[in-house]
């Protein structure tokens, strides 16, 4: 699977309150509505800057804080193709895989905002077209690859009726 888009860079410890604030997330299940408020407390105009397929690129501990699955859902519905970070908080990481949002652990220091990237998930490599360099990707655990290959956890359950890992 190859994804192509531009980078939007964020810092360390981006928590799920910043990804989608409690002000919005408690009142609706309409993820397209929530998507408009993605990262609002860090960058009020972020949603309008996204071209479908773009990447969120962050430092360490991305998605820390609350367990709200609206966070990866809203990112996905905002048109983000994948999140690249040095490390992820574990609940966010699981949630993202479960709903089919690719999360990529890699060294993001050398990626700047606006860089054109190609993320090749099957080969485990990121090509930074702007800087003409490649970045290695830390592979996903095998159980997560199984879930992703089935199309997320709901699809995995529809197929097997329970966990088949």
């Amino acid at each position: 699977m190859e994804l192509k888009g531009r980078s939007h860079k964020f810092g360390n410890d981006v928590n799920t309150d910043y990804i989608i604030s409690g002000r919005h997330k408690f009142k609706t299940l309409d993820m397209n509505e929530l998507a408009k408020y993605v990262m609002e407390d860090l960058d009020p105009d972020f949603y309008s800057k996204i071209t479908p397929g773009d990447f969120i690129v962050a430092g360490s501990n991305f998605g820390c804080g609350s367990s709200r699955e609206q966070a990866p859902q809203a990112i996905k519905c905002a048109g983000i193709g994948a999140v690249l970070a040095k490390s992820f908080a574990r609940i966010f990481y699981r949630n993202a895989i479960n709903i089919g949002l690719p999360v990529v652990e890699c060294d993001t220091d050398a990626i700047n905002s606006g860089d054109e990237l190609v993320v090749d998930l099957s080969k485990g490599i990121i090509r930074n077209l702007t800087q003409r360099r490649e970045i290695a990707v830390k592979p996903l655990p095998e159980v997560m690859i199984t879930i992703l290959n089935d199309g997320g956890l709901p699809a995995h359950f529809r197929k097997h009726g329970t966990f088949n890992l």
Partner: protein
Amino acid sequence: MGKTIAEKILGRHSGTDAHADEIVVADLDFVMGQDGTSPLAIRAFNDMGGEKVFDTGKVAMVIDHSAPSPLEGVSALHKLMREFTADKGIKLYDIGCGVCHQLMPEQGHVVSGDLVIGADSHTCSYGAINVFSTGVGSTDLAAGMISGKLWFKVPETFKFQVNGKLGPGVYAKDLILYLVGDVTADGATYMAAEYVGEAIDALSVEARFTISNMAIEMGAKAGLMEADAKTEAWIKAHSNRVPQPVAADADAVYAKVKEYDASKIGPQVARPHTVDNVSPIEEVEGTPIQQAMLGTCTNGRLEDLTIAAEIVRGKKIDPDVRFIVAPSSRRVYLEAMNRGVIQALVEAGAAVVTPGCGPCVGTHNGVPSDGENVISTANRNFKGRMGNNRAFVYLGSPATVAASALNGKITDPRRYVR
């Protein structure tokens, strides 16, 4: 090779010889969701082809994050939860019952040795009574409701050895803020924390919940403690179930071990806008506050309300401070009324709101205005957390919040506690 608490509980529930870093599929003893996460879980449940829950006695939902509903949209989601729980025959704790993390142990649903998931990140709270409990998202919750199972990566363990005793005016909240500040927000990511030592042993079970509750603020998957006589007595008073406590082996293998001396820790405050931005209270003393908040799954229990009430009893809070109190459950509320604790708080000027999470998560019941400072007993102070991204949230103990409410500025509670 010896085992940690996490390895033993996950091993017992998966029928494997679980060691750190292995993947297991394990049986769950209890599964819980709240009103911020359950509606999505219900959608996932249906999407997964779910028809019934694996065991109606082992699943519950709680309406606590926006309780009672402040908005039409929220009301629709609450209705969805009421219909789902009625249809599936599972327990619903509706508005006024309390905060989910108070209710799960208080109502006897979880006991030592259990494996529990909750769709709320502070589910790690029950580690205080020797439960491996961890927060998950809505889809994992749906999978748990259907199958009674979940996959886990067996975590490595970070052992916090806390020697010595906390001094007067210094509480479990100060200790856990200190630890979070020391190891930072991702200091224990992917790991289970084990909290041991003289300082932990000396705490009440209620105070221990405060510590385990904030394990997630250091990134931990669980915040475990061993069960002692206090734990056993507490569980006996709250549950009919038989606990199966688990202790770590003497030769258990830890990823990290850190030692602390509790007697050297004073009151701590987390400054805006991260929980690990912790400093001794001396560095922030005198900071003006416009709102003080006592409650939440971290510090809304009877002991917390009592500590605060003793500080404000017979006095009046600063006229420019809104002092909001949210007992963590109906049972806590009633006991606090019976003991005159609510009376003392209200006479001092507190506004008591429905047991629930509202003020902490910014849904209602006390959204601060632009530029205002809040001192709160909650576990998070992220920008916008209380509903306004132009407000500033400081975190402290119930004593610090009460002392600060009296003075209209952040105040060292040791002035009031002997």
